[in-house]
Every structure is written in structure tokens, then in C-alpha cells.
């Protein structure tokens, strides 16, 4: 059925075009022969085609454009006619003899245009007459097109200041009055469309209306271009009149479109100076109007304006733009009860962007906005509206981007409250954004307090927020996000050792809540961060000895001990082992023998009890040997115990080659270059000989099982060791 209608429409359109062309042809002939009477007759007939009610606005426009082109020719003719001595006043009367109103008014506008150009009467009077006569067309579509024609032909003939048609003192006002009136009438017609015809065609009608909206909006463009509209006139006349029409028409489509038009058409500085009036209209609009987009557009414009030049900023302060916008937004949200959450959040996000541009120094404004947002969100629980979530992320990201400094965000007391309304996934995402911002800007978080706040903010990453809800998160994503947490821990740093100590306490507190899955990621950076402090304290102690320091390496080692222990719950013995060894080494550097010994003990216990995989054992033993070798803090006894244990572990490895290698590595434990009292050539030899034995055994085993004598790599490696120690003077003889 719809196809049928469209087909019919096509037919009607082509019939209309045919009729129009036919009469245009006769009109041309009359024009060519300077026959005014016939010209009027055929042009009126031609214009009668525009009287149709059958076409949709889209098709009607096509017909209108053709008529428009023809009317240009007619206008030329009228102009020539007056040059030939025909009185323009008579002509103006003559066209009004046409019996049908629509052709009559098109002709009248056309002659009116020539009339103004002739300057025989003030432009103002002619325009006033035209606009008054146009009232005769009450049919919305035909009326809109006629008035749009009037607007088109009068555009360059307004009695504007500086125009050649300029009139007396109030000339710009006359121009404005004319356009305003045309605008008002057109808008009325446009709105009226909505209420005509059956209710079931509502959708179609709304589509048709949106096709026509630019005809109405054009008037506002014209207003925007009138030179004589200065700020005063805009404030006193133009804006109040336009808004009055917008508010009073009570039409959703018109209000939305026209508000947007007003914002786009007039200059920013005018908006700034009339903000109160403009915003005052917003709460009066229909509840269904998408006011947030309108306001967001306004704020975006103002933001850009503020960003465009620093010179305009004082004006923003002067007019208290923020306060006005803030109040207006509050009112709009209040007025529009059923505005979706995301709408409100969008408004706040736009206001925030605006504030960041205009008042970058006013953190309290930002916090105020976030506070208002929290208030709006409160009692609604977590958001599950994806649009709203997106807006909140934008809202929260904006300050980060602007200040490039998490410090600032941490000062915003409402920031974490807003975050709480995000669902878990988005919360994490947002946390990631925060971390990324920190990383990108290389911001150090330098007080425990801020660290506390930061962890509060990103707690989505630090611990499972909802215990019951098992994370179905992708393993990769999880790793990714925990890696960024790990990186973040590195950024928590201050030169003040005392404060750093506090930070370490805070971090520890938080990461321990992370659960077994997170610990392997978070403990290492924490440990290293703590060790860094240890080293700093160490060097400080060397410099300023005797000073009472709050944080001692010992304390830190205690903390570390406890923290690493936590890894056993994961369990991650290998990682723990490495960390123990790191700590031991650090303790060694601080000459804290008992502490270092304790760490080693822990490492050994782990080795014995937890590390059962042979490959892991090999790696671990080598680590142990390597670390132990560098230890110099141990007394002979402790050292003997540890080395003995280490050699013992080495010879108990599963695979012969591994045994062999571990054993010859152990040889280094007895020979420290820089410590003369630790050069025990005998025990080195013992190790090497033992390694040789094992190598032999390995070869024999290979012979027995595979039938070949196997490689001699092990022997070469051992030889290498011999040569090394030989050079050092550690091996007396070589067999």
C-alpha cells in the first residue's frame, strides 16, 4: 500500500511538473513579447500547481524549486518592465488581482522584491505588507514554502544597518521585526502540522516535519547575519522573542531543533552574556525534549570558545558562567523527571568539560559536579545502562586528561563515590584508565594518604569486590590489568624515607587483600620497592650516621618476610624463593647476618618442601648457589651450614648432568675472590672431583642405556672450572 502511495505521488509530481512547465513556456513567450498581461496570467497559472495537497514535503520541494527558478525570470522581467516606465506601484497592485491566493502571494513577493529594489517605498513598509498578506496561507506546507520564498527574496533587501535599503533610526529593528515575525509564523505552521491528520500517521508526519525544519531554522540564520543585531538588541529583543516562541509552541520537535539552532547560529559571546535567559528557557521545555544534547552542545561551544583565546576567559568569570550552567542543569534534571540517568550524567560530563576549560583552577567546581552526579545516582545501585556507564567513564576521565596529574583527582572527594556506581567491569576499566594516566604522565604518588586514596579508587583491581561473583574474566585481561597494578606500585615513591615507609605499609595492607590470584603480580614490585628503600636507608646511614631514623632496614625486612610468606598461600614457591634470596642479598648488604640467614632458611625450607619439580629445582639451586656465593655477612658457622646444605641439594638432583653442573657450581661457594679468608682450595677441589665422578657416572649410564658414550660436554665444562681455579691458584694439581 505504501508503495502504491509513493507511486501515486510520483505521478502527481510529474503531472505537476508538466503543468508547471507548460505554463512556464507560455509565460516565457509572453515575457519575450513584453506582454505583461499574459505574463501575469500564465505565471499565476504556473504557480497554481503549487496549490496541490497531494505531495509530501519532499516532493513538494521539487516542484517548488522549479517554480522558484521560473520566478527568478519573472522578477527580471518585472525589473525591466519598471525600467521601461511601468510603475512599480501599479505592478504591485496588478498582481493582486489574481483570484487564487497562493499564486497571488508568490507574485506579490516577487514584485515586492523589485519594489524594494526600486527604493520607491521604504523596504520596511513593503516587507511589512508582504508579511501581513502571507497570513492568508494557513496550510502548513504551502505556508512554509511561501514564507520561505519570502525570506529568500527578502534576504538581501532587509533594511539592515549598512545595507543600501537602510531606513531611519530603528532600521535594524525593522529588519529584525520582519524576520522574527516570519520565524514565528513559520514555526506556528510547522508545529501545526503535528496536530493535523489522523493519529496513526504520526510517524510519517514527524518524518515530514523533520524534512521541513530547515525552512524554519533558516530564519534564525538570517537573524544571525543581520549586522544591526548587536548584543543589546540580541539580549533585549531577539533572544526573548525567539525563546518565547520556542517555549510557547510546546512542541517537542520544534523545541529541540530550535534551541539547538539558537545555540549554533548566534555568536558565543552573545550566549555568554545572555546565559541566564537562554538557560532559563530550558526547564520550561517539554519534558520529552532531549535537552541534554542541546545543553551539551552549548557547553561544548562555550568550552571551545574559552579554549580559543585566553582573552575571553575574564568574561566567563564575570558572568559567572559556571554557576549559571550548574543551576540550570540542576533545574532541568529536576524538571525532566523521566530523563534517563545517562542523560543527567551526560549533562554533568559536559559541564565538567566546560569547567575544566574555563576554570582549570577550580577543583571545588569539579568536585561539586561530581557530588551532584553522586546525588543523582544515589539509591539507584550499580548502573547497568551501558550508555550511562560510558558517560560516567567520560566524566571521570576528563579531569585525568586535563590535569595529567592523579594528585588532583585524588583530591576530589566525590570521585571514588562516582566510581562506585560503575559495574565491576567498567570500574576496572576506569581503574586502568587511571593507572594509564599515571604511567603516561609519570606521576609519582608521594604520600601515604594519596596512596590510600588511590587504592580506594582502583580497588576494583586490587581485590575481588564481590566475593560471590566469580570472575569470568579472560586470563589475559587479568594478567594485563594486574601487570599494570604492578607497574603502578613502582610509581608510589617519595624521597622522604619516613613517608616512603608509610607508603610501604599502606601498599602492603592493600595488596594483601588481593587474594591468591593477585599476589604473584603485586608482591614482587612491592618487594623491590621496599628493597629500594632499604638500600636508600643504607646509603643514608653511611652518610649521616648517628641520626635517629624512624624506619630501619630491619623493620622493612620484617615486613618483607611476612609479605612473602603470604605467597605460600598462592602457592608460588619459586617466586617466593627468588624474593627471599633477593631480600637475603639486601640484608647481606646491610650486614644483617641473622636476617639474611633467616631469609636463606626460608628459601631452603621452600626448596625442600614446596619445590618438587626437577626443572624448578635445578633453576632454584642455581639461584641459591649464586646468591649464597655473594654473601659475605655470614660468619663461618652459618656459612658452612648453608653451603653444606646447598652442596647437599646439588648432589641430590635427579638428572646426572644437572647434578654435575650444580656440584661444580658449588665450587664457587668456597672461593670468593675479594675475601681472602674464604678461599678454600681443598673444598673447591672436592667439589670438582665430585663433579667429575658424576660426569663419569653420567657417561656410563648413557652407555648402558643408549649404547653410545654420550657427549663430553660435561667434562669440558668441568675442565673450564679447573682452568678458572687454576688461574686463581685454587687447584694445586690436576689429574
Amino acid at each position, binding site marked *: 500500500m505504501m508503495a502504491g502511495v509513493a507511486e501515486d505521488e510520483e505521478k502527481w509530481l510529474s503531472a505537476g511538473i508538466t503543468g508547471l512547465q507548460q505554463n512556464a513556456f507560455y509565460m516565457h513567450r509572453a515575457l519575450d513579447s513584453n506582454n505583461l498581461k499574459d505574463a501575469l496570467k500564465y505565471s499565476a497559472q504556473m504557480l497554481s500547481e503549487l496549490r496541490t495537497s497531494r505531495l509530501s514535503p519532499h516532493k513538494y520541494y521539487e516542484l517548488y524549486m522549479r517554480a522558484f527558478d521560473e520566478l527568478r525570470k519573472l522578477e527580471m522581467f518585472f525589473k525591466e518592465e519598471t525600467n521601461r516606465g511601468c510603475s512599480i506601484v501599479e505592478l504591485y497592485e496588478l498582481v493582486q*488581482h489574481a483570484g487564487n491566493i497562493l499564486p497571488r502571494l508568490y507574485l506579490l513577493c516577487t514584485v515586492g522584491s523589485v519594489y524594494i529594489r526600486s527604493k520607491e517605498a521604504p523596504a520596511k513598509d513593503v516587507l511589512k505588507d508582504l508579511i*501581513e498578506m502571507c497570513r*492568508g496561507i494557513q496550510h502548513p506546507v504551502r505556508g512554509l514554502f511561501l514564507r520561505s520564498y519570502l525570506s529568500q527574496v527578502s534576504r538581501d533587501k532587509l533594511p539592515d544597518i549598512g545595507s543600501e535599503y537602510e531606513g531611519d533610526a530603528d532600521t535594524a529593528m525593522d529588519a529584525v521585526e520582519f524576520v522574527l515575525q516570519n520565524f514565528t509564523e513559520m514555526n506556528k505552521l510547522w508545529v501545526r502540522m503535528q496536530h493535523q491528520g489522523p493519529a496513526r500517521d504520526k510517524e510519517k508526519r514527524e518524518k515530514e516535519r523533520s524534512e521541513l525544519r530547515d525552512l524554519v531554522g533558516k530564519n534564525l540564520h538570517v537573524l544571525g547575519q543581520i549586522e544591526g543585531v548587536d548584543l543589546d538588541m540580541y539580549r533585549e529583543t531577539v533572544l526573548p522573542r525567539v525563546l518565547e516562541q520556542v517555549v510557547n509552541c510546546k512542541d517537542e520537535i520544534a523545541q529541540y531543533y530550535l534551541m539547538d539552532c539558537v545555540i549554533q547560529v548566534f555568536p558565543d559571546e552573545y550566549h555568554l552574556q545572555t546565559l541566564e535567559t537562554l538557560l532559563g528557557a530550558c526547564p520550561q521545555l517539554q519534558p520529552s525534549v532531549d535537552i541534554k544534547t542541546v545543553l551539551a552542545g552549548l557547553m561544548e561551544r562555550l568550552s571551545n570558545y574559552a579554549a580559543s583565546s585566553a582573552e575571553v576567559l575574564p568574561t566567563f568569570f564575570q558572568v559567572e558562567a559556571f554557576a549559571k550552567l550548574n543551576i540550570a542543569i540542576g533545574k532541568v534534571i529536576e524538571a525532566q523527571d523521566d530523563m534517563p540517568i545517562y542523560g543527567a550524567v551526560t549533562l554533568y560530563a559536559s559541564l565538567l568539560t566546560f569547567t575544566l576549560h574555563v576554570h582549570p583552577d577550580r577543583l571545588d567546581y569539579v568536585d561539586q559536579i561530581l557530588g551532584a552526579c553522586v546525588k543523582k545516582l544515589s539509591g539507584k545501585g550499580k548502573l547497568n545502562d551501558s550508555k550511562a556507564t560510558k558517560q560516567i567513564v567520560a566524566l571521570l576521565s576528563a579531569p585525568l586528561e586535563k590535569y595529567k596529574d592523579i594528585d588532583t583527582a585524588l583530591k576530589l572527594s566525590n570521585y571514588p563515590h562516582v566510581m562506585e556506581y560503575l559495574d565491576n567491569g567498567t570500574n576496572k576499566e576506569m581503574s586502568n584508565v587511571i593507572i594509564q594516566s599515571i604511567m603516561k604522565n609519570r606521576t609519582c604518588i608521594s604520600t601515604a594518604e594519596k596512596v590510600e586514596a588511590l587504592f580506594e579508587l582502583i580497588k576494583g583491581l586490587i581485590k575481588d569486590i564481590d566475593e560471590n561473583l566469580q570472575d569470568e574474566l579472560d586470563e589475559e585481561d587479568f594478567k594485563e590489568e594486574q601487570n599494570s597494578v604492578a607497574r603502578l606500585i613502582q610509581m608510589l615513591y617519595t624521597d622522604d624515607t619516613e613517608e616512603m615507609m608509610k607508603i610501604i605499609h599502606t601498599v602492603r595492607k592493600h595488596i594483601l587483600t588481593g587474594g591468591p590470584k593477585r599476589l604473584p603480580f603485586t608482591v614482587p614490585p612491592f618487594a623491590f620497592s621496599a628493597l629500594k628503600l632499604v638500600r636508600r636507608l643504607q646509603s643514608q646511614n653511611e652518610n649521616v650516621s648517628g641520626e635517629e631514623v624512624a624506619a630501619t632496614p630491619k623493620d622493612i625486612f620484617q615486613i618483607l618476610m611476612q609479605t612473602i610468606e603470604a605467597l605460600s598461600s598462592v602457592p608460588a614457591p619459586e617466586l617466593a624463593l627468588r624474593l627471599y634470596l633477593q631480600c637475603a642479598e639486601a640484608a647481606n648488604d646491610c650486614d644483617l647476618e641473622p636476617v639474611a640467614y633467616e631469609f636463606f632458611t626460608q628459601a631452603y625450607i621452600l626448596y625442600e618442601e614446596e619445590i618438587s619439580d626437577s626443572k624448578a629445582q635445578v633453576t632454584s639451586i642455581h639461584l641459591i648457589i649464586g646468591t649464597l656465593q655473594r654473601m659475605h655477612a655470614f660468619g663461618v658457622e652459618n656459612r658452612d651450614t648453608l653451603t653444606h646444605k646447598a652442596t647437599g641439594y646439588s648432589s641430590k638432583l635427579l638428572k646426572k648432568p644437572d647434578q654435575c653442573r650444580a656440584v661444580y657450581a658449588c665450587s664457587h661457594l668456597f672461593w670468593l675472590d675479594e675475601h681472602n679468608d674464604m678461599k678454600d682450595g681443598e673444598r673447591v677441589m672436592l667439589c670438582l672431583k665430585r663433579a667429575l665422578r658424576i660426569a663419569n657416572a653420567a657417561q656410563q649410564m648413557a652407555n648402558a642405556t643408549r649404547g653410545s658414550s654420550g657427549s663430553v660436554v660435561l667434562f669440558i665444562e668441568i675442565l673450564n672450572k679447573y682452568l678458572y681455579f687454576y688461574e686463581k691458584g685454587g687447584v694445586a694439581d690436576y689429574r
Partner: protein
Amino acid sequence: MNYIIGAFKPACHISITFFDGKSRKQVPSKKENGQTLMVPLFQSQENIVGKISIEPVSGKKVEHNGIKVELLGQIEMYFDKGNFYDFTSLVRELDIPGELYEQKTYPFEFSSVEMPYETYNGVNVRLRYVLKVTINRGYAGSIVEYQDFVVRNYTPPPSINNSIKMEVGIEDCLHIEFEYNKSKYHLKDVIIGKIYFLLVRIKLKNMDLEIRRRESTGSGANTHVETETLAKFELMDGAPVRGESIPIRLFLSPYELTPTYQNINNKFSVKYYLNLVLVDEEDRRYFKQQEITMLRLAETS
């Protein structure tokens, strides 16, 4: 051949010329056969002066019982065709009985002729002025020649000319208020006015303003009324809403109007009406008719 035709031709040729025929204004006048002819224009109290020349067809003499010229004001009713009622009749004798051998010219003059009524060509009635020259011939039948002329009388602008203002409507359906700036219009006048919609509950399609002429002839039981619509002028296209006001500007000059004639010689009257017609989407018509007085002002130019 020529001779035979000559036998049916009038024996002489009569021509009537006006003294100021060259300078006097001529207006078109419709003849009975539908042709339009330019004829001189007079008004009441004017002197009608001219001359009549009679030229016998070459070489023939015209015997007659006297020659006269008459000025007649006649009213002709179409239901009584051919029967003229003369409301004015003036006679001038031009010649005593005798014979005409050659062309002879007679001057004539009617001074300050009372011509109270205007020439009018209606549907059922015609009022005309004519000069009639008669050459009386006893046995052969008189030779008669006519010369039409048009009379128009001018009235001064009315001292009182109120506007027409009226509120009309159908209860709970349609209420309008309309205003025409005057109640008396001259023939080249412009009707200015507006229609204000107080209540609109019907779906209107358009609105027209019509000028109607009501010509009534005869009297008593024989009264015959004929109404013509002389102008149909569209005022509004589409459906207005409450509060709209629609302007009226109707130029009267393109229409063939006459002044209002009130009971001309007890024979006929011509009245004019403005008829405001509103048409709804079902093509129902709602109208309100108002009489206006038409008058002829002296042309300034």
C-alpha cells in the same frame, strides 16, 4: 446588380456627429448583437450639441413630411422585449416638410438635459440613451437613424462611511469576526479588512470573498431577481486555528461594477453584496452576505 441593391438601400444617408465628438471621452458599450462599440460619454445636465447631416443617395430626391431629432431615455425589460419605456423624451424639429436634393446639415442642441439614470446593461433590464433622427415619409415609411450614447453620473464621496464589522458563527463550531473598512465603495476602490477566527472546530479548506450583484426587475408579484457572482477572490488557503487573523485586500477595478441603483424609475434596482464564504473539507459552505453601496466618484484625471 447595383441597381437592384440600390432599391433596398435607404434613400439617404444620415450621420449624427457631436459638437465635441473629437474631444469627448468615449467608452465601450455593448450592443444587442454582442459587439462592443465606442460611444461618447455624457452626464446629467450636460448640453448635447451636434449636427445631423443627411445625404440623399446620389441623384435621388427625398420627399419628406418633416425631419426631427429626439433624445430618448429608455428602459427595456427583457421579458418584454422590444417594448421600450421612455422615461425621457425631448424633440427638436429640424425641417418642415419638403424635398431634399442634396446633402443638408442641421445643427441641433439639447441644453442642460436631465439624465438622472445611468446607462445600464443588466441581465434582465437595459437602460439606454439614444438620439433618434426621423425623416417622416408618408407612404414610403420613415427613415430612422439612432446614435447611442452613455450616461454616467458621479456622486461626491459620502460624508459618512462606516466600516462593516460583525461577529458571526455557528455555536461551538465556528466563530469569526470580520471587518470591511467601509460600507460604501467607489468603483475603483479597494476593500480592506480582516477576518479574525475566534473559534474553529471544523476543518476549513479555504475562504473566499465574493462580490455579488442582485438585480431585481418589475414590481409587486412580477418582481424578478437575478443574482450574479462578479468576483470570486480567495482569501485563505488551509485551515486556520483560533486566534489567526486573515487580511483582506480586494481591488475592485478589475471587475465590471456599476453603482448601486435604487429603484430606477420604479422599474428596477441593482444592489451589491460582499459574500464571505468558508468551505470545509467536506465542501460544505458557510457564508455571510453583507450589502455594500457602490458609487461612482468623479474621475480625478
